[in-house]
């Protein structure tokens, strides 16, 4: 497990673009909204806009989640040779979250302020993003595992994964809206935690099954 983590960390350091690109996309798309529709951007819309953009950013980052290992053949070897391929998958998903969701937890609330949220809402938004983004990485990895063999898999990945994202989107946006209004967000906290934990229970197994299918597609 430690060896896997170290390998992932080194890969992350070498491919810094994989981390910076999605974050840059999030910043750019937020500014797009602010520039294009300054009148409509307000505390009402901020929650939905922020979470939708986070979703799209995750989608962008998910596309190449397994591609590097798939192309180099490491994926196939891991599935065949590793003692517990499950741990490799879990590590990959964790590092995926570290490179996208984890960073979004810190910059997302400030983008929310950019979109019109009150500054007092920042901790609440960070909590919501922290609880919701693991679900996105986990569920997204299911879609990524099945589409890794496709040459133009991005669109199908979006089609498969966005329906799974929708509950997280609903509760996440609800939490941000609640934080902006100052009301208690405990219902959304519970719901997001539930979704993330359920995703943690299902996604690694589904991902493993999907990867085994994809590897045969080469």
């Amino acid at each position, binding site marked *: 497990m430690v060896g896997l983590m170290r390998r992932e960390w080194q890969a992350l350091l070498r491919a810094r673009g994989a981390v910076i690109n999605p974050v840059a996309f999030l910043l750019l798309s937020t500014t797009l909204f602010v520039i294009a529709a300054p009148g409509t951007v307000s505390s009402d819309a901020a929650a939905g806009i922020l979470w939708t953009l986070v979703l799209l950013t995750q989608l962008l980052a998910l596309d190449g989640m397994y591609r590097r290992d798939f192309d180099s053949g490491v994926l196939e070897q891991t599935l065949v040779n590793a003692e517990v391929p499950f741990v490799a998958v879990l590590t990959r998903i964790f590092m995926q979250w570290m490179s996208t969701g984890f960073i979004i937890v810190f910059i997302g609330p400030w983008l929310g302020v950019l979109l019109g949220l009150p500054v007092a809402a920042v901790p609440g938004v960070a909590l919501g993003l922290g609880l919701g983004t693991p679900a996105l990485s986990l569920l997204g990895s*299911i879609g990524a595992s*099945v*589409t890794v063999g*496709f040459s133009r*898999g991005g*669109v*199908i990945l979006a*089609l*498969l994964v*966005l*329906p*799974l994202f*929708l*509950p997280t989107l*609903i509760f996440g946006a609800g939490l941000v809206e609640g934080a902006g209004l100052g009301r208690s967000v405990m219902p959304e906290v519970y719901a997001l935690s539930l979704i993330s934990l*359920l995703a943690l229970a*299902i996604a690694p197994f*589904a991902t493993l*099954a*999907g990867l085994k*299918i*994809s590897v*045969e*597609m080469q």
Partner: protein
Amino acid sequence: MLSASLQRLWHKLGSPRWFVALTDGWVKALGWISLVLLIWGAVWGLGFAPADYQQGNSFRIMYVHVPAAMLAQSLYIGMGVAGFIGLVWRMKLADVALTACLPLGMVITALALFSGSVWGRPTWGSWWEWDGRTVSTLVLFFLYVGIYALREAIADQDLRARASALVAMVGTVNIPIIKYSVEWWNTLHQPASFGLTQKPAMPSERWLPLLVMVLAFYAFAGFIVLVRMRTEILRREMGARWVREWLQAGGPR
């Protein structure tokens, strides 16, 4: 356990050749039953059921909307179960079943969404409201479309079967969300007026046609799914001798 003949029937149904032979009679029967029930239910519900005191005659869309919505969920559960059987027992006919349920499920979900929208216009005042059930049914529609797109993208038959089975199984988690969304949230969509164990909160002149329509829709779905399954089997086993012999002997009777 199950009787020996029942087990034998189950095993026979798993073989493409026996499936086509055994379901000959079922297809005709289901076709006629669904036609009769559809006409009976439609005429009774749309024409003769007493008007609602609040909604007037616009409630009659219920006779299309409720069966369509129930069928949309059932077909997806069917696909999930077929996917599970296909992945675990590697039964080829399970993928045929999944293929058959997919297009019908897409169309029926679209029908449910459309009829619901038409019903909402006079009663809620808007063509669409974002509440728990409408959103999760929309998600169901996107799940169908996603599986369809996935199947189109994979060329190899076995891999296509396994990938779509996996995605269908993962998406099954949406079905309880649809079903219980009207209980969990204080939503605009009315709660179920039609349950398995309790007496409906409607006078019998109004829910009996609904029962007929539900049975009609399910019979129709069974008919369509069987026809599609048989066609798909014949297409896949095109080169086999039994197909030629069967077609020469007269084909579907």
